[in-house]
């Protein structure tokens, strides 16, 4: 498989224009052109750590505080899903659980796996790695669904004394966590997947 780099070109990751190697800035969109970003993996790991760090309080603190006339209830993400499930709302509970737990956790794992694979090599095929990366990049933003739910609920249910829903502390951390993981996924240079599959000598072999 030939890469752009093999052909002496560099692709803009933002607008997809190809420019000759050595061009510093994309002639079309003006972003910095790197054939391979040397710091990409560091960025991935840095955002990944931040995201994970935010994800811990996001699960420990309450996500939603519901004050009604007689009681005040605060639920964490998992606790809320469990409560919903206990009330029989399996569908909603499942959606929350998938969007707020399964997807972020899977994202952390996949990102870490990809970064590790690029760094140390992996047994997965390049095509599969790329597919995983596509999924992570696409599905990552859907984790925000929980934040949206909280935002909508807390703006709608403001009946003062009767019932009030306010976003808990976890919602901020959760939103930060999602943002950081998205940044992490964005920092990942998917071209490295393809680089990692090729032994370094291969490059020299092909050089005439």
């Amino acid at each position: 498989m030939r890469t752009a780099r093999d052909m002496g070109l560099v692709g803009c990751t933002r607008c997809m224009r190809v420019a000759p190697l050595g061009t510093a800035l994309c002639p079309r969109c003006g972003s910095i052109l790197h054939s391979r970003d040397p710091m990409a993996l560091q960025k991935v790991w840095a955002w990944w750590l931040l995201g994970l760090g935010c994800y811990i309080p996001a699960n420990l603190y309450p996500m939603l505080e519901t004050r009604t006339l007689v009681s005040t209830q605060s639920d964490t993400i998992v606790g809320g899903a469990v409560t919903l499930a206990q009330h029989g709302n399996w569908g909603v509970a499942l959606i929350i659980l998938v969007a707020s737990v399964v997807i972020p956790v899977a994202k952390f794992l996949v990102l870490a796996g990809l970064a590790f694979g690029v760094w140390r090599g992996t047994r997965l095929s390049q095509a599969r790695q790329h597919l995983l990366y596509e999924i992570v990049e696409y599905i990552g933003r859907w984790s925000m669904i929980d934040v949206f739910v909280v935002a909508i609920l807390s703006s709608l249910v403001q009946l003062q004394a009767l019932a009030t829903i306010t976003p808990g502390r976890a919602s901020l951390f959760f939103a930060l966590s999602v943002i950081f993981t998205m940044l992490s996924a964005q920092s990942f240079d998917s071209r490295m997947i393809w680089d990692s599959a090729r032994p370094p000598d291969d490059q020299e072999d092909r050089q005439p």
Partner: protein
Amino acid sequence: MTQTATPPPEPPVTPAGRNLIDRISVIWLVPLAALLVVLGVAWQAYSERGPLLEIAFDNASGVRAGTTELRYRDVTVGMVEDVSFAPGLDRVLVKVRVDQEVAPYIDGDAQFWVVRPQVTARGVTGLGTVLSGVYIEGLWDNSPGAAVTQITGLPDAPLERVGQDGLRLMLRAQGRASLVEGAPVVYRGIEVGRIGRPRITADGASAEAEALIFAPHDRLINSATRFWDTSGFSFSLGPAGAQLDFSSVAALVSGGVTFETMISGGTAARAGDDYTVYPEESAARASLFRGDDSEILTLSAVFEDNIAGLTVDAPVEWNGLRIGQVSALNGVVDEDRFGDGRVRLLVDLAIRPGRLGLEGGAGRDTALEYLHESVARGLRARLASASLLTGGLKIELVDVPDAPPAEIETIEGGDLLLPTTESEIADVSATATGVFERINALPIEEVMAEAITLMQNANALVSSSETRDIPGSVNALLDETRGVIGAPEVQALPARLDAVLTEMETLVAQIAQEALASKLSAALSDASAASQGVSDAVSGVPDLVARLDAVAQKAESVEIDALAAELTALIRSADALIAGEGAQALPGTLNTTLEELRHVLAQLREGGVVENATAALGSARDAADTFAEAGRDLPGLIAEAQAVLEQARGTLAGYAADNGVGRDARAAMREVERAARAVSSLARAIERNPNSLLLGR
């Protein structure tokens, strides 16, 4: 684009930096900054954390870790972190994380209690806790003290509120007095304190409760202050009349205590002093004097009249001033002293010397001495009415100026016996009965009955058919009258009268025309010399004429005038009859009268008055005719008279001095005179009774 054979240019690869800075991305600063923020926040939270306070409660209902707050002046200053049991499970330990800024003020004097909703007669408190859950309220002073970590909470809210200071007293209920938790202590209508939770005293005899009198009202309390219960109401009927006592509706429901300092000179109260709460004001007042028994002068008095109405506690008055009260009532039978076996009323009087207003203190002995003097001057005790309404009695000490000498006796047992005098009891009931009897005796019913009868009679009179008939009868009468007047005969009367008058006129004219007078005059002038008597006799003729004239005039005025006058009189009589007082019988009589009247009128019309009148007039005309004829004969008569007179003159001339002739002539003259007198009497009779001429009777 075609694939070129030329290989692509070698990509410029930046060699790895030698130093660490070149090899590490600046992106690592972001997590580093996050870490610093986290650490900073954690440190701040830890450093600002206040101390943990452990409060022990009997029970912690509603207290939950992480939810229940500690409040001071209704501001949250802490949060319960843990609820656990003390060793032995006899208490609940509530661990409260207290804000650092208030922690120094929480010292050993701090009080904590759990605020729960309470519904009492005085209102609802802690309503907010129904929804928000209970909270722990703390109360402490404004000065920092030694920090404590363990403290015992109160089972209930203390009496003090934040910012309230005051005097703590112990109130002990006496008799029916009741102490209600949270009830107010009221002074002159203002709440000046509050009663705490009552409990039974150790001896089980009464209930006691702590009370807090708020500053600055606590200065109202001294040792002479008496408390009494104002809850509920009391109704009493005593010597002072009916009394209904209650202070306020709120106190009626929720209870309350009030107080008054009844005498001056008490010592200031100290915190924790004991006070008794009396069931009512009178008891509280009485207690003041019960307290100083040594100052009570007890006297006795025996009253002859044993009258109901005197009760224990009835006032003893001197000149209207209450100087004591009746302390006991007894009957006494003492044949030796009183001479008979009758039961007499023995009254014990508790007299307070202080009320006598004596100088130099009001000692018992001073007062007794003064009373001795007063009795010597005529002071006596007597029973008097205290209340007109209830008939209650009181004891009065009065000065009786000319009382038989007496003194305060000392009888067996050391009692002092005050001399008594006649009672002055206004028997209200008797007086009232008298008044009522007098009112009762008024013949109101008779008056009313008569008035009713009068009204009924008047009504019957007015509404009787006979009365209603009167107008009809009057109408009929008037109709009859009109009929009589309108009768053709009556109508014809004037014409007839006119004819009579004409004839009369003719007669008189004839008499005038006859020139008899001159002849007569001549005859008389002849005779004048002969005899004065003859002259006198002849002089009756003009008189006769005048009389006839009068007769004519009478006849003229007689007719309808008289009839009308009589009818008028009749109607007036009927009128008078109608207007008369014998109204009861009037209608019938009136009707009858009217009937008769009508009958008379009918008769009058039918039978004949008019005819009679006509006949009378006819007779009158005949008479007049007769007169006319007489008049016509008169010249003859006069001629005869003349002849006679000539004869007489001849005779007189012949026998002037002859007595016999003179005697004959005198006899003739006498005849003439008699004839003239007869005519005169006829004329007089006609004058006297013209009707007879008219009516032919």
